[in-house]
């Protein structure tokens, strides 16, 4: 009788208790996304005489982002992309040189975006899904935490498109927006940054 009870308890534990930790472990297994080279970043700003749009049209490195679950709600998104300031193209040689100078390219040739988290695990369908996440943006040696709005989807070729956008200020990074002709021409402090990352799950 005692032996039967022990066997029943063991069977119960096997079916319930022993099985339960293994299932989340599978769900929690980190997912890696490899960033492809046709990813891009654009920066839009304005002065009191015009608007400018500067792009880094292609990402020239191979990096990965790792998605994993957190103990509390949300998911971690770890990875770092480094973008060459010299790759910025503002479609006007003077403005391109000015942006590179303003971002202090000589001393800090790279702009970094360090991914920290997402508010939820994306479903990854063809329909773009709106999510948010935290990143650290480092420009000219100054790092700042920002919440980013993302649109994420996966197309038929299983390419994941992650589009992140955020308005930042030059002054967030202790940068002074350029002013010309005694301040008659002023660049606004506000910049709209948008990055489009194409990735494959690996």
């Amino acid at each position, binding site marked *: 009788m005692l032996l039967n009870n022990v066997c029943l308890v063991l069977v119960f534990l096997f079916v319930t208790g022993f099985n339960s930790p293994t299932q989340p472990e599978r769900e929690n297994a980190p997912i890696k996304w490899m960033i492809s080279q046709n990813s891009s970043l654009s920066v839009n700003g304005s*002065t*009191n*005489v*015009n608007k*400018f749009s500067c792009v880094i049209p292609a990402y020239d490195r191979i990096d990965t982002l790792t998605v994993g679950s957190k103990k509390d709600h949300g998911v971690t998104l770890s990875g770092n992309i480094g973008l060459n300031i010299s790759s910025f193209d503002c479609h*006007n*040689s*003077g*403005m391109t*040189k*000015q942006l590179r*100078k*303003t971002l202090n390219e000589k001393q800090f040739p790279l702009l970094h975006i360090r991914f920290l988290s997402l508010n939820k695990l994306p479903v990854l369908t063809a329909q773009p899904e709106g999510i948010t996440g935290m990143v650290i943006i480092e420009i000219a040696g100054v790092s700042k935490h920002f919440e980013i709005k993302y649109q994420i989807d996966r197309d038929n070729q299983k390419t994941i498109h992650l589009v992140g956008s955020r308005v930042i200020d030059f002054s967030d990074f202790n940068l*002074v927006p*350029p*002013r*010309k*002709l*005694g*301040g*008659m*021409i002023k*660049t606004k402090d506000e910049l709209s940054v948008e990055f489009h990352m194409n990735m494959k799950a690996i």
Partner: protein
Amino acid sequence: MKKILITGLIVGCILFILSYGGLYLGVRYFPGLFVDYDNPLFNSDGSRDILFYLHAFIISFALSWFWARFKTMFKGTLIMRGLEFGVVYAIIALLPVMWISFSSLDITVIMVASWFLYGLAQAIIAGLVFAKINP
């Protein structure tokens, strides 16, 4: 000497108002002409703003001395004297400077042409005032 300084100061004040007022209106109503100034070729940190705004007085004192030295050579009505004075300054001083600037700097024809016309207008206005107050 005192006359040169006083007329220079008066003309400097007039040019300051007209030049920077005109520039402000130009930026406001013809912004497309100023797009190319967003270039590291032009000082962008504000460290030379005081020098920029002193230009009206630099040119007024220089032209005041030039007028006092050569005013007897400008003959005719007040308007003719002022116009001729401006044109002489533009040909002797502005044209060669604009020429070397355009040939050596990454600037546009419109930029150089606008500088030439700006300087010519300043010199004509200065010439008219000199002809009136220091004939």
